[in-house]
């Protein structure tokens, strides 16, 4: 099967900052591929490179075989891009926005009007299509923002953190849209720092940190990387340097990480290690004020690979 995106050795530097530092990945046609990482990991820079906003310092990427360096217009014509910001004309209505962007995507006349009607239906704004975008809620604007990228039925939809700062209802609506687009046969490149979104939507996930992809694969493959360990989150009521030192020695605990009062441990079997953890805390007169046990997930994987929590 033809690759939707093939990135080879992509690099982008800003003075001393290595925003993207030698990234390789491949996205198969028809899949949902997520770039997961904290803010500043380099996800948006990769999107900007792929969509031709600025050229890479090194490397190249191919969109359905078209080089972003040599054939940028051909590559762009195959993409629909949902930027992180709400990139709309607020003084135009939803319909006027869709018509304008549809024209820039090459649609004209009746097919354009018909497609605009379809998209308005899809994003649930048919009734308010004539209202200026400035009157819309944040969630409604996000939906128009996404609708624009679907107009020309692109082979590839690129979505850069489309759910940032919106209410749960709109977020659900957007995620359903992503799945619907994929069902229509569109390949989706999705960036997020929400582990749950990547977990729910993606066929493949690439985890990014500091301009590099640190791991890539299906959800199951990534979880295997941490040896299917449980993640235990505890809160200690006092400074627990000595406690942490002892906990690291407990059999079955592979990693202990502290972030303020919150302590995260990786353990092969949380039930087996918990008694020892309480016993040690008692020894040092430390009180465990809260405890939560998580089965292996992407957060665990990220912690394992980078030594820090994803939300950091």
């Amino acid at each position, binding site marked *: 099967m033809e690759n939707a995106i093939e990135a080879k050795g992509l690099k982008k530097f800003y003075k001393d900052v290595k925003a993207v530092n030698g990234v390789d990945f491949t996205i198969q046609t028809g899949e949902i591929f997520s770039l997961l990482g904290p803010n500043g990991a380099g996800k948006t820079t990769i999107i900007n490179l792929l*969509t*031709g*906003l*600025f050229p890479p310092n090194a490397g190249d990427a191919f969109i359905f075989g078209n080089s972003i360096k040599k054939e940028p*217009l*051909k590559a*762009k*014509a195959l*993409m629909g*891009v949902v*930027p992180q*910001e*709400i*990139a*709309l*004309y*607020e*003084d*135009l209505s939803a319909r*006027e926005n869709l018509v*304008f*962007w549809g*024209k*820039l*995507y*090459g649609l*004209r006349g009746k097919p354009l009007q018909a497609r605009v009607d379809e998209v308005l239906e899809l994003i649930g704004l048919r009734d308010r299509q004539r209202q200026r975008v400035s009157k819309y809620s944040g969630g409604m604007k996000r939906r128009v923002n996404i609708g*624009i990228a679907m107009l020309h039925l692109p082979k590839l939809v690129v979505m850069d953190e489309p759910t940032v700062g919106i209410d749960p209802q709109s977020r659900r609506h957007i995620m359903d849209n992503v799945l619907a687009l994929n069902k229509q046969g569109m390949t989706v490149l999705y960036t997020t720092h929400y582990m749950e979104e990547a977990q729910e939507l993606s066929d493949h996930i690439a985890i990014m940190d500091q301009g590099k992809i640190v791991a890539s694969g299906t959800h199951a493959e990534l979880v295997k990387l941490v040896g299917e360990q449980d993640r235990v989150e505890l809160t200690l009521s006092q400074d627990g340097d000595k406690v942490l030192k002892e906990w690291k020695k407990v059999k079955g605990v592979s990693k202990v990480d502290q972030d303020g009062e919150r302590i995260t441990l990786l353990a092969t079997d949380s039930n087996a290690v918990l008694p020892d953890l309480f016993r040690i805390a008692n020894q040092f007169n430390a009180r465990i004020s809260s405890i939560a046990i998580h089965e292996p997930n992407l957060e665990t994987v990220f912690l394992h690979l980078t030594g820090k929590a994803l939300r950091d």
Partner: protein
Amino acid sequence: MRRLFDIVWKDICQTVRSPMAALFLLVMPLLFTTFFGLIFQGAADEDAVSEKPVVALVVGEEETPILNELRSLILETGELNVEVFAASDYPDPCVLFEEQSVIAVLVLPENFYFSLQEQIPATLYVDETSSEGQTALYTIQHIFSQEQILYSTSMAAMQAVDEQLPYSSDQEFQAAFEQVLAKANQSWDEKAITVSMERTVSSATDDFHIESAYDQSSPGMLVQFTISGLMGIAIIFVQERRTKTMQRMLTTATSRSTILIAHSLSMFFIIVAQQIILVLSGHFLFGVDYLREPLAILLVIVAFALWVGGMGVLMGVTAKNEDQVVLFSLIAMFLFTALGGAWFTLEGTSETFYAIARHTPGAQVMRGFQNIIVRKQGFSSVLEPVGMLFLYAILFYIAAILIFKKNKE
């Protein structure tokens, strides 16, 4: 290409839809044209009253033929006005100098008509140190020598006739003499050789006389509000950068150059439309004679629109936010309208100011318009200012392109 016009159309829709646009593009310029017209009109009226220095004729008797002849000859010079005072009212001619406009006092002796024969001189009081006094002196000397010749010639002719066919009375002689003198004056006016002189205008100061105050305020306010109208248009450009819609455009198969050209074109169309409306309003509402050379005016409009468009794009790519656009627009407006002579005629400013200001783009626009509406010149008179405006437009566009390309990184 179609994408380019899609962007142009979108820009125009956005601009027209903005309530501020109508205010700044049309309402304000028309209001200010009226205001400034009324202000300039007052000043122009004052100037008209006091524009020519006055020669006071102090006479013992009024309405004699010789007095009327003198008065009309002085007025015909085009340099001086005449006011006649009875000698009984102004015993001391020097009192008249206290009136600021009086630069010469000519006291004619009683029965001046006959005193010419007896060679009793008229007395001229004048300040020879002033240029206006000099003008008055030379003008009156010239007139007197002309009158003297006419008088002497007419008198000689009359005496020759009187010797052959003596007149029955002095009254008869006097009546015949006046007829001869009138004929002699008429012959003087009908010169055998006439020289016609046509002025060519090599500098902006030549032949510059504003007949209506709107000849100044209409093009002036047009220049001012076309430049300030940039605000609304350049803001669209900056908003596109701020809201990332420009970045989004770049993710479609639309190139940077297409976006830049489209925004320039939309600015150009809006500015041309604005100017055409203001020119037509100026012509039909304020009586400014723009349409005596419509092609020349259109050429100035196009050149002006290109320059302002270039400046708008430069602002659009340079300003970081809407506040900066407002600031830059205001600076541009005040700078180019003040230096361009939009508020006052540059011809009335100091030499240094004039030397600097006359080369600015605003001054080129004003010169282009006023060569037609004030100096009443032809199509060719706008070519030089239009050429200068094209040059300025190119400079501004080059700067905008360089900055836009630099922003790519």
